[in-house]
């Protein structure tokens, strides 16, 4: 790591180097066992990015909220509720329904945090639980339709020019989020509000709207991820979003976004997502038992954050 790297880019550089290290270690393993290098084949990488798209889209939304110094714990069941409601409605209205569910949950979260001033960790956890209750109630009495619509299947499984459509969706979401964060007043206001809400408010930034906007973005992203995941697994089911909460937060933080808000670049979140996806994949290729995988996974996250912390101390 050279000294010329700006502090805010340092986590991105470190995480990128770590990705290279994971690929190198995995390739060394496969070379020694089977003599092949499947990890470096374009097909393998595209497949990883395709499954990474769900996490990547959740993390993109989560980043907006974390930049405010808040957190959105309702992502898993927002994702599930959007997917299940969408398939229940079915047809052409399925995807708009999913987005509407996302919008509604986002408005609720934003209202609770910005206007009722309830800490987001509590409020979004409550909303998550409520959504789970609603979904259980929905499937309890009768069996709603749960199969993915053709559009969902297309978005998640088809390929254009050999590249999975899901990757295009992820790229589009990334482009929009990156543009919002760097080039709009809303995005700059997120940084300002996350950095110091009082000063942002006294600068005439409508901080409450900013908070609501960030939560809406997060829930919309979760809903989009729900749509893709439904297409990928061909149906919506309870608990389908459970595996995404912690990796999404981890990806954002590994990408260098400050957990207390105000600092972070979207490129970092992208790198963080790829790191997590590859780490999981390589560990499973190495046939690491589940217990060992969890331990390594956690240790890597803590270890990387320690490295970031060190650097910040040196620079301050």
């Amino acid at each position: 790591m050279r000294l010329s790297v700006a502090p805010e880019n340092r986590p991105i550089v470190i995480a990128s180097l770590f990705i290279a290290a994971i690929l190198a270690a995995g390739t060394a393993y496969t070379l020694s066992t089977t003599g092949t290098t499947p990890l470096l084949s374009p097909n393998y990488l595209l497949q990883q990015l395709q499954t990474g798209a769900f996490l990547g889209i959740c993390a993109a939304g989560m980043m907006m909220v974390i930049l405010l110094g808040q957190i959105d714990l309702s992502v898993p069941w927002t994702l599930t509720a959007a997917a299940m409601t969408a398939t229940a409605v079915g047809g052409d209205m399925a995807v708009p329904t999913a987005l509407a569910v996302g919008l509604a949950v986002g408005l609720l979260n934003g209202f609770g945090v910005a206007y009722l001033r309830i800490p987001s960790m509590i409020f979004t956890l409550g909303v998550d639980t409520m959504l789970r209750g609603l979904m259980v109630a929905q499937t309890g009495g009768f069996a709603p339709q749960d199969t993915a619509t053709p559009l969902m299947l297309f978005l998640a499984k088809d390929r254009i020019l050999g590249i999975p459509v899901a990757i295009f969706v992820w790229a589009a979401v990334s482009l929009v989020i990156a543009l919002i964060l760097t080039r709009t007043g809303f995005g700059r206001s997120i940084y300002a509000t996350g950095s110091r809400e009082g000063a942002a408010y006294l600068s005439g930034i409508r901080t409450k709207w900013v908070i609501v906007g960030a939560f809406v973005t997060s829930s919309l992203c979760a809903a989009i991820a729900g749509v893709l995941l439904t297409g990928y697994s061909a149906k919506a089911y309870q608990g389908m979003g459970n595996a995404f909460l912690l990796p999404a937060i981890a990806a954002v933080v590994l990408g260098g976004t400050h957990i207390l808000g105000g600092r972070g670049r979207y490129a970092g979140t992208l790198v963080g997502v790829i790191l997590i996806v590859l780490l999981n994949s390589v560990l499973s290729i190495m046939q690491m038992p589940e217990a060992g995988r969890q331990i390594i996974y956690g240790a890597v996250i803590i270890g990387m954050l320690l490295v970031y912390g060190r650097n910040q101390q040196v620079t301050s």
Partner: protein
Amino acid sequence: MTDAIVEYRGISKFFAGIRALENVDFACKAGSIHAILGENGAGKSTLIKIMAGVLQPDTGEMLLEGRPIVFPTPTAANAAGIVCMFQELSLVPDLSVADNISISDPPRRFGLIDRRAQVARAQELLARVRCEDVDPNALVRELSLSRRQMVEIAKAIGRNPKVLILDEATSALTSRDVQTVYDLLAELKADGIASLFISHRMHEVDALCDTLSVFRNGQHIETFAKGEKSEREIVRLMIGRDVEAQFPAKPPSKPEDQRGEELLSVRNLKWENRLNGIDLSLRRGEIVGLGGLDGQGQKELLLALFGVLRDVEGEVIVGGRKGLPSSPAAAKSARTRIALVPEDRKTEGLMLGMPIADNLLAASFSKISRGPLIDPLLARQAVDEGVEKLNIKIGSAEDAVMTLSGGNQQKVVIAKWLMTDPDIILLNDPTRGIDVGTKQEIYRLMRELANEGKAILFYSSDYAELIGCCDRVSVLYGGRVVSEQQGDAITEESLVAASLNIGVEAA
């Protein structure tokens, strides 16, 4: 020097290759009140941070009572009798006054904190700083800035210092509390305690200190006894060049009918029990001062006009319409065009960790956007313009704003608001903790802005500023305007009298 309690020999300190202190020899005697003067960035803070164990010198040695000593931590310095009150208040807002005063060394009984002894100790120390009215059980958060600073002083005294360092300790104090601190320091001096006093207010230094040391660019320029040099000479030593008159010339006061258009008119403004019927009028081209003791409603008035407070009553006409703005966002809108430079630049004025550019643009996103997107070119132009107009000394606009000195930070806040092209500028003690050179730049800027037709409402805790800068001064007492003074009638005597509401009406 034989009776030096603390002595520096050839101390240097560098930050990332930049000189903060270079080869400094310095001594401070027991039983003296020693002023450290210099512009922001002159090395004063580094000097005292080394003494307080916060920083380690890169070269040179420090002697305490003649013996070389190294303080690896602030705790070690404290144990050796060096107590420092930093510019940034170091109280914990959510703890009580008593808890804060004994925070590092609470009285214990059987290993547990003895609450009763703690409160008694707090009472005794508060009485020493003549703040008997402060309840030891009150939360620090509930106290005004001035009272907090007094609690900080009580806390420092409670540690039985040999050397007491006061870094801008009086910057937030009301004049009554300043007097208390003067008396206290005189007592400590008689007890043989050395006080190091850092202040940007020359008259305080003059009233209080017996020895003065001037620093500039990390170097110790000169140390001399009080009275050896005139104020003018001292200022020249500090900034290394001559300065013209401290305040820019005021325009002659005009008769009623020739004054500018009235931009703001306030009648009988009330809010909770802090504002009790304020009348005020603000015209184009004038600087109106708000005087009075601290906590008489000045800050609340500014916040109310800026749309921060809820449920404010009274008749207000601003921007040609009735009613106060409903939020800061509404206040800065095209109808009212109000700007506020808030009291505490570190928490209210700036996002300290963010780049200078982002701070400058924080109030003007709509101005630099084309359609929904920010135009990077317009943004860069706006930043360059702001930096140039206020002569802000920066390396790169992408550096965090906290890397700037206090004066330059305040300039960033002001530049941020000038970018919105306001009509009405509300200033809440904008020169607090700022060096002389920058203060003068701000005074000049205020007059320029007024001449451009803006209206300025200016609260200051420093009477000299009100006298030097303002066309009119309204003195507040108990949430009411008790006196309005104009032109030459604004004098220190009349302001003090009105502040205390002792009824000596100025002509």
